[in-house]
């Protein structure tokens, strides 16, 4: 599988480490959001047969976190973004 890194171009998937669902970016504030929201964040994941947004880490490359949109049925990758950009677009400052 080839992942088209937004900065470095096509890279073999063996250079990357998979973390999981992109929703991990949206960690609720543990002090104010309430236990339900945090439980949902920690344990509940969708398991779609189709497009899935997921976090990959370019460990044997530039050490960037990526948000990869991958079809879980065909493994086709339709979009690759820097997780930093995705988080900032959501209003995160870090």
């Amino acid at each position: 599988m080839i992942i088209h890194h937004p900065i470095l171009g096509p890279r073999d998937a063996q250079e990357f480490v998979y973390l999981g669902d992109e929703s991990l970016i949206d960690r609720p504030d543990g002090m104010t959001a309430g236990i339900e929201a945090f439980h949902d964040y920690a344990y509940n994941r969708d398991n779609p047969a189709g497009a899935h947004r997921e976090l990959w880490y370019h460990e044997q490359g530039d050490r960037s976190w990526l948000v990869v949109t991958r079809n879980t049925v065909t493994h086709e990758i339709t979009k690759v973004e820097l997780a930093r950009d995705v988080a900032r677009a959501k209003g995160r400052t870090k």
Partner: protein
Amino acid sequence: MANALKARTALGAHDPLQVMVGALVVTERFDVALASVAARRGRMGDLAKAAETIGLPLPEAARHASGEVYAAFWTAPEMWLVEAPFASHELIAEVLKQALGDAASVTEQTDAWVAFDLLAPDLAPLLERLCNVDFPAVVVGYATRTMVEHLGCYLIKHGRGTARLYGPRSSAKSLLHALEAAAHSAW
């Protein structure tokens, strides 16, 4: 007493090693000082200005560039690994911290890596056995992190038959063994 203390190379010898296998010449570089430079958040403009005054090149993604004293290659967004002559820049991290101020975070890297200069008429037969970099296809000055025998390394292309490989210092012998084994296979 202090005068009697002499640093050993990454391979544990007193002098840097040079070995020839087939068409390949591997030269251990013991005379390169290294430091990482990363722009602090929102300070890239300040870093670029400060770097310019000391002649420190900050090349674009996946590239290596040489200045008069400093050379550098890109390792991550807004982060570089800087090379300088060890004889004049043994304290490279201190020197860079002074010059770049609080625009960048600097870490000493000299003793974290082993540096091998690779020389052959064409390095493609060697590197295609060792890593997934398409060496003939990439431009001169290309620099990338890649895996060689499960070791995370930096590979810098200086020409069709010249490249520098930085590997983890504690695995210097393993990396050299991998180079020798691949060279035996290639030539």
